[in-house]
């Protein structure tokens, strides 16, 4: 089960009582050496995942996908097609698991919800003036409430990077708690937009800030800013999740999103989770891959593992 909590953990209650105490806490976290973090991620990327491990990894990755369409040109038709794919990714192979969720803009949540009724597939909706986050808290709360009213099971919010980078941590914290409240029963994924935070120290602080404020998941990117998810950024976030659990016993989920296109990429992320947080995190409840084109590559690789032949792009559906 996802964590469903409304406030930050009691063990860290006093951390966010003032801007100063929050700043002291975040600035007191151990620093991240960029060269070392990059090296560790690069080393883990050399893990060779073959045969039965690869087969298991592909199914696992499929089951963890937040199948995403976040385009200005999205239509009801596009969302319905995506939902059909989410339920049965490969019409020729019914052993392929369904994906974890379909991720859309808030106004499309209603359509997705209708298409996905009677399935375990969640509807995730981006909210809070996605992707820039540049709107008043009032607008962001309304955005969130509407998405939830439209049937969203999960809300993917963005943090106010401007506030974060100018050191107004308490503003970011309060905004997350407000959105968390607006979510009601819906689970909250907090997007840090690491491509705009630039340094790993900032990524680590933002991860802690989001977890302290009640995030169920922390997520790298909107997919609208380059670079989106990277292995070292994900590693730093996973290590923050590990340390947060050690302190609070709460398991926070992780979602790298954007730029994950190939089976090889997806397996590297699974290795990262496996060797940082361990196997207990290898579940869609605690790990998601935000992606659109990744699914077809996983299907092609699954087909190849089964038959020994590559099928080619025309043998998987373009949705």
């Amino acid at each position, binding site marked *: 089960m996802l964590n469903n909590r409304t406030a930050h953990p009691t063990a860290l209650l006093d951390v966010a009582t003032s801007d100063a105490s929050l700043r002291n806490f975040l600035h007191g976290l151990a*620093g991240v*050496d960029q060269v*070392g973090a990059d090296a*560790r991620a690069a080393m883990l990327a050399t893990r060779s*995942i073959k045969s*039965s*491990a*690869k087969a298991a990894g592909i199914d696992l990755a499929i089951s963890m996908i937040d199948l995403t369409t976040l385009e200005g040109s999205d239509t009801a038709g596009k969302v319905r097609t995506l939902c059909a794919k989410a339920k049965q990714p490969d019409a020729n192979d019914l052993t392929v698991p369904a994906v974890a969720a379909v991720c859309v803009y808030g106004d499309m949540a209603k359509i997705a919800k209708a298409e996905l009724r009677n399935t375990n597939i969640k509807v995730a909706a981006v909210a809070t003036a996605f992707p820039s986050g540049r709107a008043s808290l009032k607008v962001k709360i309304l955005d969130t409430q509407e998405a939830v009213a439209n049937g969203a099971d999960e809300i993917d919010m963005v943090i106010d990077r401007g506030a974060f980078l100018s050191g107004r941590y308490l503003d970011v914290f309060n905004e997350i708690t407000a959105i968390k409240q607006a979510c009601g029963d819906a689970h909250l994924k907090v997007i840090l937009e690491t491509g705009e935070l630039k340094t790993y120290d900032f990524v680590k602080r933002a991860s802690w800030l989001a977890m302290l404020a009640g995030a169920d998941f922390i997520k790298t990117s909107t997919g609208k800013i380059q670079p989106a998810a990277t292995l070292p950024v994900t590693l730093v976030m996973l290590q923050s999740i590990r340390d947060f659990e050690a302190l609070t016993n709460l398991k926070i989920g992780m979602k790298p999103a954007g730029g994950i296109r190939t089976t090889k990429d997806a397996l590297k992320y699974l290795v990262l989770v496996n*060797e940082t947080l361990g*196997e207990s995190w290898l579940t869609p409840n605690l790990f998601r891959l935000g992606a659109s084109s990744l699914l077809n590559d996983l299907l092609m690789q699954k087909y190849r593992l089964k038959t020994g032949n590559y099928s080619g792009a025309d043998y998987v559906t373009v949705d």
Partner: protein
Amino acid sequence: MTKFEYSPALESTSVVDIKPSYDLFINNEFVASKNGSKFQTINPATEQVLAEITAATAEDVDIAVKAARKAFKSWSKLAGSERAKYIYRIARIIQDRAREIAVLETLNNGKPIRESRDVDIPLVAAHFFHYAGWADKLQYAGVGPNPTPHGVVGQIIPWNFPMLMLAWKIAPALAAGNTVVLKPAETTSLTALLFAEICQQADLPAGVVNIVTGAGETGRSIVNHSDINKLAFTGSTEVGRYIAKAAAGTNKKLTLELGGKAANIVFDDAPLDQTIEGIVNGIFFNQGHVCCAGSRLLVQESIHDELMALLYQRLDLLRVGDPLDKNTDVGAINSASQLAKIHELAASGDAQGAHRWSASCQLPTNGFWFPPTVFTNVSQSHRIAQEEIFGPVLSVLTFRTPDEAIAKANNTPYGLSAGIWSEKGSRILQVAAELKAGVVWANTFNKFDPTSPFGGYKESGYGREGGRQGLEAYLAASTDE
């Protein structure tokens, strides 16, 4: 079976062609020993015999030295740019045959294929490339306007990085215009013999590189040969002492790269997760068979418990086993005798009251294995804090202030390397200046580069290898013919 257990991912051994028996490499040919015997070389991960190699006698060494002496006349007269062509060619062939060399290294040494593939062999090629570039620029090596080579160089290398140590020795020697008689370690001679084939493939003039295999007796013949101008040795301090004595009073130049007991110093403002990786890389890289290994962890007391908890968690993830598996992190101990030495020193740690922790990995039944091990409650007076273990064993000590860290770090007969972990640049610079170590790494460990000089203080030896400084050891300052 767990949800996402990595399947075996074995590197294929079909790329290597190991002959049943090897002769000596003299004058660009493989020649039988005059009267030497053969001995077996094994795969330390399985104890299977890989091949038979020759124990070169004093007579064989003499023939090799004569070949090198003859070749020196023309090799040293060759224009630097011409010598460079040969060395570049060797570097390129090494890159071409990198996989083959890496697999053979792993088979004979026991180190993980990931390491021989990603660290050792790329560095080998890089060293040859680097020194090839120096061959026509020797006037800038820092020893005067017209430096000259010494002549015939006797080189004795260890078993921990067989091919890399060969590169460190041979590349600068050739670039400077010397010729070489090299003895690889008796347990790990196969890549040196493959290098002999590479010399043939590169059309290196006969006698420029000669490789004589064998154990201590062969080494003694090199050390005591009267027509050798320079000795270069990497290995134990004990053997280094013998060589220094033997060379004393002769005209032989000498460089020694010996043991170490490096302090890896962690301050309370260290980047913790990267520090953990640095500790792992410092002592478990190459099974701890590294002279500059970070074998003494000095942790500031205020973060000791937090750091150790993270470290134990990380060490339990180390994948110990078949060195040919691409996912193996820690491979086999190189020999039965080295394993016995590690056991003996670890037992002394227990006896002297240190607390032993070992990773919960399953060790293979055949071959030589030792689990990644950490000793806490270690005092400066314990043997495991003083003596080089040369295995996957970390001794953890604590300190309270930077002064205490520096004092403890320097309180060793060795002085090869050290590490500092801190996010505070000024502290790194201040502490580094106080450490008596040839290499000080800051927020990293065990990083090597052909442009960077490497060598020690005190009982860790003298002379430098790598970079411009490494060239000096192979050049004399004389300006006349």
